């Protein structure tokens, strides 16, 4: 069903390599203002498109592929069919079953989006200059200043577009806006080395501590992630570790204990660790991208389980938070 981790990874990387054209433009899929989940204070998060990982639980699947992708929103579509006429490669087909998108043919040119009056078709992925991204980020300067917030570059994976991200961070820092790098840890060493000096803090994911399981669930090898984590720790910046808690995948006490041990012994500057309970609301995004959603039907984590994991996590020696929807609260949803 899924392609092998290796091929996914290489294809993801090569997809977006073209976007990092010396940093002149970056390929992003969202700029989220009033972001209150991605670091301290009120922030703006720039989501970079393209990720070397393909975690089965990914709640931003539109960030995985580096290429531009179409999303069609059935509830908005009024059947005007202007998109079909606009498409130069005939990649769209609208029938009573909905929109069929030929994803091989579609190159994300965006003419369909421009033609649609109803906003029912969107190109995910936009090429933007660092200066333009900076100007958008800088709009909320007053909110960062009053809250201790700033820019977070997330993804996708920011280190895959290091020149753009470096330039964006530099512009922000020159303007007095603090910066945060949010990375999955699977990074080329030089990209990380380039971005760490420009980051006021780092958010890094540690998901699974068993090597085989890591490869199976994320598509990449654990050693590279841990090496990055050590590099990040060595940079001496404040670090927040984040762990998605996914039932049957990452939610064992052994796994959390292993991450705690790694943090305690090898990541001294970690100031905070967030356990993020599995979020099941992203299924529709997979459908819109014609991607399989393997966690269909997977249950939410129970509150007591989150509390137990948070207690285990305490041995990491840093502040531990847990957040997210839990099974008890969303009964009946």
């Amino acid at each position, binding site marked *: 069903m899924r392609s092998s981790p290796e091929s996914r990874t290489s294809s993801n990387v090569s997809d977006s390599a073209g976007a990092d054209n010396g940093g002149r433009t970056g390929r992003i899929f969202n700029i989220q*203002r*009033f972001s*209150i989940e991605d670091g301290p*204070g*009120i922030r703006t998060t720039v989501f970079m498109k393209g990720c070397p990982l393909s975690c089965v639980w990914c709640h931003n699947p539109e960030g995985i592929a580096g290429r531009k992708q179409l999303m069609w929103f059935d509830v908005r579509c*009024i059947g*005007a069919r202007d998109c079909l006429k606009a498409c130069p490669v005939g990649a769209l087909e609208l029938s009573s079953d909905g929109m069929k998108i030929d994803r091989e043919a579609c190159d994300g040119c965006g003419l369909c989006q421009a033609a*649609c*009056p*109803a*906003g029912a078709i969107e190109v995910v992925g936009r090429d933007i200059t660092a200066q333009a991204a900076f100007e958008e980020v800088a*709009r*909320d300067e*007053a*909110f960062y*200043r*009053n*809250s*201790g*917030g700033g820019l977070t570059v997330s993804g996708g994976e920011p280190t895959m577009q290091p020149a753009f991200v470096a330039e964006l961070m530099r512009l922000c820092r020159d303007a007095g806006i603090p910066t945060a790098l949010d990375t999955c840890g699977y990074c080329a060493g030089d990209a990380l080395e380039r971005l760490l000096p420009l980051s006021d803090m780092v958010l890094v994911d540690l998901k699974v501590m068993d090597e085989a399981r890591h490869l199976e669930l994320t598509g990449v090898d654990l050693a590279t992630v841990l090496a990055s984590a050590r590099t990040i720790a060595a940079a001496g910046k404040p670090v927040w570790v984040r762990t998605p808690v996914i039932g049957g995948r990452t939610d064992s006490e052994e796994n959390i204990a292993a991450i705690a041990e790694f943090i305690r012994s090898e990541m001294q500057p970690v100031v905070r660790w967030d356990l993020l309970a599995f*979020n099941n*609301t992203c299924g529709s995004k997979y459908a819109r991208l014609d991607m399989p959603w393997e966690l269909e039907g997977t249950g939410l984590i129970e509150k007591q389980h989150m509390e137990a994991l948070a207690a285990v996590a305490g041995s990491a020696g840093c502040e531990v938070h847990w957040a*997210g*929807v839990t099974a008890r*609260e*969303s*009964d*009946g*949803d």
Partner: protein
Amino acid sequence: MAHSKALAAEELWNPSTELPPRVARLRDEYVNIDERDYFRNEIMPFTTGTPWDTVWSPALWGVVPDLIPFYKAFVETLPLAATRVDLPEGFWDGPQVVRVATFFHEVVSKYLPVQILDGELIVGAQFNTALSRAQNKTEAKEWRKRTAKWMKGIEELNSHGMGNAGATPGHLIPDYPRALKMGLRGMVEYFQDLKSEASSEEHIQFLDALIICCEGARELAARYAHEARRLAVEYEEAGRKAELVEIARICEKVPWEPPETFHEALQSLWFVHMLVMTQESYPGPGVSPGRIDQYLFPYYEKDILEGRLDRGQAKELLECFWIKPNYAYDYIYRVGRTRGITSGYGQLITVGGHGPDGEDVSNDLTWLMLDVIEEMNLLEPKPNVRLHGKTPDDLLKRVAEMIANAQGAPFLLNFDENSEAALRWQGLPEGDLWDYAPVGCLENTLQGNDRSGTVDVNINLAKAVELTLFDGKDQATGDRLGPRTGDVRKFKSWEQFCAAFETQLMAMLERFMEFYNYTDALRGGFEPTPYLSALVDGCAESGKDVTNAGPEHNYVTVEGVAFATAADSLAAIKKLVYQDGTVSMSELVEAVGENYEGHEKLRQTLLNKAPKYGNDDDDADAVARYLSRLWTEEVFKHKTPSGRRYRAGYLSWNYWIAYAPTTAATPDGRRRGTYLSNGLCPVDGADRHGPTAVALSVGKLGLESVPNGDSHTISFNPSMLSGTERVDKLAAYLRAYGEKGGTALQINVVDPETLKCAQENPSDYANLLVRVTGYNAYFVMLGKEIQDEIIARESHKL
């Protein structure tokens, strides 16, 4: 964002379970109006008994157009149900202002029922009246003639959805600190001194009227003292007996003498305040006590320092005081509780803010009052909190925490720097700006000397767009409402369109100001309010009534309704018709005329391809600013013949719903009947970039030309504000809003699931408060249409 489940009734912001038993009982007693057959503060009409008497005035209720169908009935039937008051010898010899004063004196000293509720420490129960205007036959005839003409005018404006206007009572802050400091006796002595210097007979008679009113207040207090002594004899229980003796002592002293203790000050304030509602025959709206944490503080501090009172006792007194203003709502017990009218009786108090030197002046009483607000969970007095750059962090966090824990923030937030910038633009004295406070919902005024006629004129800005598209005609009826500005389909440029729009808008403004001038003269000439005039600085000195430009500062506020609907309509035309050329004006006019039936593609284009105000989008915001500056600067150029300057504000009360059916489809993609935008808020669903972007959009409007201030509501899902970390982020957001946003902000923290649950189970959710349009309201008491609107508003927030 995660799906959330409705909050259970016990998870809502509820009254504290720790309230002192007496306070809990008094609160329950107030809430359970149906069971309170021994006491309801319902409207009590009093008449001179002449066949031409009037006790109720349509022009005073012009801004409540829901009442238009009842105007005649109220005018004709209320006198029939009225208690006839024995008039003293020579009553008809004096001028009307003296007659009104005498009538007031007679009613409060002999007729107004006096009742002390079980356990209450602050007394003064019955105050809702409909008092005779004490007109003689000639005056009454002229008043009726003019009122009939006025009613035609309001009907014409309202039925076409243009707006409304009225000489609204209340909506000001009397000089209560002066009344406390001098006592009414001291004020009477001052009025006597003025009499000896007055040069005209008219001025002397006016001062006599003020004196008569103050003496009436003294008489009423004496009646309460008497009642307390009577009850003290009856009561067996020693504790209550002693309380009643103390109440009697206090009522024998205040408000005539200056209070010396916190209890005396609260009692004096309540008497003086409730009688304003009695005299104006208007239940509450906007008669606002102002900065009570400031002027009550010396009494509080002295009692604490001298060991007369501890903090707990002070709190209990405050809680007893807190219940009293809520009884204004008994006014409409019989006419029903729909349409949100029931919740808009904003007797605003203001806490926090800075002093003349710019330093914060919050004090222990500020904190105590926040506790009382949180624990009481009542509609009145409606609290406003003034925030500024130097508001201490702990106070700001306390405020943010209360917002996060209460579904509709218990208070409205006023931002001092932005509010004062606009009052400065208005030309008020620089040295007085620091002491401003809001009235009604959020309308900024100075304290004690300023009648700014807030909410007196309400104009539907979206109607000007409609009139532009249809050459001055109402789209539905074809009635001509504005000048001919030409066939819009033949216009060649955006500039040409703007010129036509400006002509229509200016003509609307002119028409409204003309109508209001007439209204102002109608009230000013026939309905003096000498008791209120005694309490507002400048009236006694000038010899002019508060209804007749007597105060030191006199304005009339024009409130802009449907601002964002109009702004987005203009932005869509500018971009799609004149810049991109993707929409033709002919097609647009046709589609608007057909309410977009069969024009869904065009409607979607307007919704999705045009820039929208509220997204920090510079194109949309520039158009919005153009619209705002255009009309707000224009009104400021005009004055009433009585000398009141017009000024602008943004408050839409319930008009954004009321005028939805009478406003044609709009070029922003809205269909006729869909609600208009509210206050300064973006069109529902149009703001898609979150709370920082919307704050910045508001801040770009150049709001200094809107001295009244603006109603801006934002909503957060409760899950976004749970936990101390997020409360800190909210506090930071508020600081930044003060730097970048508007003058006033209210916050709803509620999810649609809870609201739907409340709609279905109203009895379980009786305490659920939400912010509506500048005030908070019990959700289940609102009309279904407003409830649905609020649910829709919350539902589009992710």
